[in-house]
């Protein structure tokens, strides 16, 4: 599938058939976007369903991974 931008292709990770994690430079700021895409005229375009994290938010998120995993285990095996 063609990406809009060559740059994006090297900094995108597909999470599912419609969702991606991409790294973008927006007005000089690095943004990490976790978003759903849709098809239009043979192109994949970003939809409004998703969120773009700043570097700080990404770091806070990444540091929370162990706690996220623990919470998942709790909810999955809650009996």
């Amino acid at each position: 599938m063609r990406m809009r931008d060559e740059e994006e292709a090297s900094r995108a990770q597909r999470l599912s058939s419609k969702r991606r994690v991409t790294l973008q430079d927006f007005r000089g700021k690095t943004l990490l976007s976790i978003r759903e895409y849709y098809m239009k005229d043979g192109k994949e375009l970003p939809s409004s369903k998703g969120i773009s994290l700043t570097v700080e938010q990404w770091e806070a998120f990444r540091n929370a991974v162990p706690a996220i995993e623990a919470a998942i285990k709790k909810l999955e095996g809650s009996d």
Partner: protein
Amino acid sequence: MWKKGWKRKNEVEAGGDGAAPSRKFAKKDSDDDGGDDGIVVCQISKNRRVSVRLWQGKVVVDIREFYVKDGKELPGKKGISLPMDQWKVMLDHIDEIDEAVKENS
């Protein structure tokens, strides 16, 4: 009983003497409104949180903006819920993503 991590102000305690609280996140099937059965794991910014919740019977990792209205914290439109298969992909690539972020910023 798991009460910690859920930072809401209007907690279930307010009504729960013996009545089945609708927000007991231990139960998997108390989820008809796709609502708030979950654990707030982390506040990643002033109004953005990561929580782990039950959505239609499945566990999801939700990264979302919240806003306050009438003293309540409500989930906003901006955000995404990752079911476990997507979460696992994310996890598998987390170091790569992290490096890419570092390289870029």
